[in-house]
């Protein structure tokens, strides 16, 4: 949480590109087609991502504008799911299976091809029982002013967000740069970028 309640920890972007006339209708379609979809198979272990509503991570329909567009603000969330098997638990089970196979076949070692097969079967069994790790990151976009907030400062999450944002809207989200604060002040930006003007180290440094 954060956009709607709690402390705000955000990365700010400026949005580059034209927002088309009649964007509301266009975006309903865009949001729906880039909404989060559960993988068809419970064995899916790749990362899956898409938009969800901020109210509930299971709400993936954007037909009702009143649920995500509040005048100038579009508010939605990025959901990223990934199934991850606990490595030590997996290795422990694999070891037991290998031991059982050796005993059953009266062999000292498991051939690599057999071990690979045991690994695949075990992985499928455990993936079936495992819930995905679910990450939800809220987004608030001031559409007319062309800036937005992502409620995360994780580079990985922000990278996923920017990719999906571009695919969905055809607009580029550029990370905010503090020098943008002084863009209209002549000569200030270049002066700030020059280093070495503020060495404050004492004699002990």
């Amino acid at each position: 949480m954060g956009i709607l309640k709690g402390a705000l920890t955000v990365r700010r972007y400026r949005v580059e590109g034209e927002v088309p006339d009649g964007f509301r209708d266009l975006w309903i379609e865009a949001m729906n087609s880039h909404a989060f979809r559960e993988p068809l198979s419970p064995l899916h272990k790749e990362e899956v991502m898409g938009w969800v509503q901020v109210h509930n991570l299971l709400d993936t329909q954007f037909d009702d504008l009143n649920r995500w567009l509040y005048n100038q603000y579009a508010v939605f969330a990025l959901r990223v799911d990934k199934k991850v098997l606990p490595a030590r638990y997996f290795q422990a089970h694999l070891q037991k299976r290998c031991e059982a196979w050796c005993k059953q076949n009266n062999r000292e070692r498991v051939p690599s091809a057999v071990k690979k097969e045991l690994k695949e079967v075990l992985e499928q069994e455990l993936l079936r029982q495992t819930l995905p790790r679910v990450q939800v990151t809220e987004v608030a976009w001031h559409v007319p002013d062309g800036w937005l907030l992502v409620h995360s400062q994780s580079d990985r999450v922000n990278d996923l967000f920017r990719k999906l944002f571009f695919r969905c809207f055809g607009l580029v989200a550029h990370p905010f740069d503090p020098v943008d604060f002084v863009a209209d002040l002549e000569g200030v930006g270049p002066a700030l970028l020059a280093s070495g003007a503020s060495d404050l180290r004492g004699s002990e440094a």
Partner: protein
Amino acid sequence: MDDTVGEGVPPHVASEFYLWLWYTSDGNGGTFTFEDGSVAQCWVEDRLAFRSAGEEKVSAVLTGESPGTTPEARAAVRGGKVLRDVRLAVRRSDREYSVTLRGPAVELAGAKVPGLVRAGDEAETVYERMFLYEELHWVVAQLFRAFGRERASQGWRESVVPAMRAWLEARA
């Protein structure tokens, strides 16, 4: 995506801004007058995080009430450390904020904004929260612009840096 946060902004920019904020708020009692004539109070609240020059990771953190008044904080700067994060308290009109300015991109983290609207009306909550965020962002922008003007002026090397050095030594 080919550009990442903070890319193109040398890390010394934010570090100098944080130090200037600390120094200036210590000297002016935390009162800043902005371009539009409005006034806000800003001061270092309860956290200063330092990094070694040339590194990204935090190497020392000072927390507690008014860490900026401690000899350790000044010693860290005199010893060559630079600020990476600073937690600020901000008061504008009757609204009080608390926020960490973090890293080279001056990102807002853990920002506590005043809660005005009663829970229930979601649209009102969005407008209010965004208004408060924008006000906080505007205050940070105004502080940065004041810093930028001073940093780009002739007086930076001639008078501000010596005054900051004296300030660092004063309570050593």
